[in-house]
Structures are given as C-alpha cells and as structure tokens.
C-alpha cells in the first residue's frame, strides 16, 4: 500500500516540484534551477484572472452542492421513516457516481442546446421570444455540470453524519420547546458539521483541479487553473505546467488546511 502510494503519489509530486524549476526549450526540457517558470506565472495578469474565475466556480458550486446536498440528506435521514426505503433512495442518489462523468456531461447537450429542451419549453411557454444563447457552452453550463456531478460527494458524508446522530437529542430539544427550525439550526447543523466539512473538501478539491468539465461545458470559452495546466501540457511546456501545478496544489492544500481545523476525518468513519 505504502509502496504503491509512494511510487505513484509521492514521487510524481516530487517530480513535478523538481521539473517546475527546470528550463524548457522548444520541444523538450532539461534540468536546471531557475525561477523563470514561477516568475512568469506569478507576474502574468492571466494567472490572477484565471484564479479568480476558478475560485468563483468553486464558490458557487460549493454553495449549490451544500444547499442541495444538505436538503437531500436531511430529507433522507429524518423524514423517510423505514430503513429499506431510506437505503433504497440513498442508493438511487449514489448510482450515477458509478457511471461515466463524460457521458453525464454529454447528456446536457440535447437539454441545453440552442434547439434543446430547455429553450423549446421556454419558447412554447412564451417566457422568451428567442432561444437563450447562454445555456450551453457558458459559465452557467459549467456550474450546472459541476453541481450535477459533485453534489453526491456532499450528500454521502452529510447523510453519514446524520445517521449517526443520536435521535434522543432531537427529542430532548423538542421536549424543551424548540421549534423545528430551532432544532435544525441548533442541534442538527452543529452535529453534522464534520460531514459538511468532508463534503466541502471533496467538492472544493474536485472543482479546483477540474479541467474537462470546464473545457467541455464552456465550449472552450472559459479558463480555469486545471485547463491552463492541461493546455501547457498539450504544448509540451512541462516545466511551466509543473509550476502551475505546484501553485494549484499549494492553494488547494491551504484551503483544505483551513477546513481540516474543524474536523478530524479519522474519527468520522
């Protein structure tokens, strides 16, 4: 286990780190120790705007996933009363996780396209008089796909936390005269915080590192950090890509570090 992980996780990260200081020639790269890659990266205005864009995607996706995920998990955990139905509905939510992400992205095309279902329905209802252009291949589509793909990662840990919550605490709160809303805010949310944190970590890291969804759903019009890296790879600019990757990794690690202050993952399993 350790061996495999070290070889395919630690060494590659070290390799990226090392190569990020190398110099690149037209078609190849060679060992060196230069800061040129970082200098270029950190001084370029593109970097800043790309990071802002990525953080925007992350923020909106995170908020949507949290809202939807929490509501769904809450419904499953506290409003569905029989265990088999609970498990059945839970599995219904998790099955898409085991199917292909790319296919699920493609699936949005007939829905969002210019002559797609969404536009046609709105036209028929008379809500709009010409097809909306921003549905497919836009930031909206990117976020929609993110939410579609990653809400699962929010539902599962929150549901797990909720199922382990001691029901007598809720009864006690009700007996003490708390309204449903008060129970939710003062009992359930604080106690499911670990689940929320774990879900957040997943969603944030997945969105930060993503490049396919952004490329595909924006039709190549939006940039994100992951896409910049994959473009640099496509141009064989490995040292530059490595430098971007190191910065991305640091950003993600800082964000996770902040989240981890609130939760001990190992206790939550």
């Amino acid at each position, binding site marked *: 286990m350790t061996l495999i992980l070290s070889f395919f996780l630690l060494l590659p990260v070290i390799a*990226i780190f090392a190569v990020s200081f190398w110099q690149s020639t037209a078609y190849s790269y060679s060992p060196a120790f230069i800061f040129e890659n970082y200098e270029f990266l950190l001084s370029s205005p593109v970097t800043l705007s790309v990071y802002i864009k990525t953080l925007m995607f992350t923020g909106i996706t995170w908020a949507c996933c949290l809202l939807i995920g929490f509501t769904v998990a809450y419904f499953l955990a506290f409003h569905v009363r029989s265990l088999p139905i609970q498990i059945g509905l839970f599995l219904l939510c998790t099955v898409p996780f085991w199917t*292909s992400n790319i296919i699920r992205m493609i699936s949005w095309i007939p829905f969002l396209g210019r002559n797609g279902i969404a536009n046609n329905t709105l036209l028929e209802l008379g809500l709009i008089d010409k097809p909306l252009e921003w549905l497919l291949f836009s930031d909206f589509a990117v976020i929609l796909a993110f939410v579609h793909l990653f809400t699962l990662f929010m539902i599962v840990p929150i549901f797990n936390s909720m199922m382990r919550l001691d029901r007598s605490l809720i009864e006690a709160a009700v007996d003490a005269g708390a309204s449903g809303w008060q129970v939710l805010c003062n009992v359930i949310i604080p106690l499911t915080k670990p689940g929320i944190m774990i879900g957040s970590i997943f969603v944030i890291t997945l969105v930060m590192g993503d490049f396919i969804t952004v490329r595909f759903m924006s039709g190549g019009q939006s940039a994100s950090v992951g896409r910049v890296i994959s473009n640099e790879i496509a141009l064989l600019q490995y040292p530059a890509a490595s430098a971007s990757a190191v910065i991305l990794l640091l950003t993600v690690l800082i964000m996770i570090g902040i989240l981890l202050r609130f939760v001990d993952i190992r206790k939550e399993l």
Partner: protein
Amino acid sequence: MDSKRPLSFYLLAVFFAVFVLFLYGPTITIAILSFQGPHGGLTFPMNGVSTHWFKELFQQQAVGDIWGSFRRSFGLGVMVMVTTVVVSLMGGLAFRKHFRGSAIVFYLAIASLIIPSILISLGVGILFNILDWDVHWASSGFGSQLTWTLPFGLLIMFAVFNRFDSAYEEAARDLGATSWQTLRYIVLPIIGPSLIGVALFGFTLSYDEFARTLLTSGTYNTLPLEIYGMTTSVTTPVLFALGTFTTVFSFIVIGIFALIYKLSSKRVKPSA
C-alpha cells in the same frame, strides 16, 4: 413520533424528486435520443425511431477504436479492482493495530484522494519520462488509477473495521483457531459483503476514470479517453448511442455486484 407527516415532509419530498430528476434526466434524454432516426440530429425532435446509430456503433468507426478501448478499459478495470480489494483488505487489517507510521500512511491516502487528478497525471507522466520508461495503460495508467481507488477502498475498510466486533475473533482464538483460520473462517465471511462494495468501487472508478489516465495511458486509449476524443470530432447521435451503451454496461456491472452482495450477505447473517 406522531404519524401525521408535517408539511415540510411533502416539500422536501418534492425537492428530492426534482433532485433525482435532475440527476437522471439528462442520461434518460440521451438514452431516448440514441434511438434517433438515421436522419435525426443531436437534439429533439425525434426524426423517426431506429437502432441505426447502434448499428453504426458496432461497425468500424472512421475515428478511433472503440472496441479496443473498451477491452482495455475492461481489463484495466479488473486489474484495478483485484489490486484495490487485496491491498485495501491488507491495509484495513494492518490499521487495526497501530503500527509505526500509520498516521503517515493514513494522511498519504487522504492526500491521494484530494490531490487534483491532473497533478497525478502530469506527475506520473513526467516521472516515467525522467526514468525513460514508456507510459502504457497497464503500467503508468494502472498506477495512477490506483491512487484514486485505493484510498476509497481503504476508507471503506476503516468504516467496516470500526464497526467490527472483535469478540468473534476472540471466540475463535479461544476455540483454538490459528490466526490464519480466524481470518479465513471468521473475519472474511463477516466483512465479505463490504469487500464486494470495495470491488465495485475499484472497477467502476477505474472504468470511468479520465483525468488521471489522460497522460499516462500511452499510445492506446481507454474508453473514457476515446469518448472524449469523439466529442470533438463526432457530431452524430453515435455519440449518444455509445453513451447509452457504456451507461447500460455500468448499470449491468452495478447490478451484478448488487446480486453477489445480496447472495453473500444472505449466506452469512451478520448479527448487527
């Protein structure tokens, strides 16, 4: 608990139904569209109903090699599945006793789960490049997929062993079972169903994995890479037919695992 359901139940139920529709709607849409008539396009309206595009799919394609990539994805999925099950089981067993460095291995696993996948892809690619090895889906691709499936497997094993009642093992030891016999006849049957879960994770995550395999699969594509390539060049419902095909395949795999799970958990009734 009172039996009358509050208003909030119905509101949340509607919300849940909408969510499920949101989750499955697009997939169902392309499933319907893949039966588009021969002259139909990528969106509604349906231009007749036919299996034209499936036939097209089964014929030789102008671009790419779907069946070859399907075979590779399947083979790789099985390899990853077996490795994930074996290694997670051993990892899970090892973690029950606190050994030196267990915290490091644990954080390594977590890190592996949350590191952006493109980094693994890039890193393994560069590493193989520096070592002057050839990237191939069965070596570097295999390894980089393991960095995704192993942590999942390990976390599931943690969850299983945290709920595992070690009194069964003690009872077996008291009856004179060797540690191997205890493992073989007590531990494995009890955790068997969860191992099937781990196997399902291993296979499906590998089968659908894209980002980590992108730079590490070498000359021969796996199926997700092939599909990705098609999205830029193919503009007929063949794409939908392929999508429907792999989704159905995924469902069949899930079904098979669910069946095995059911059979094996019936055989051993856990007393939980």
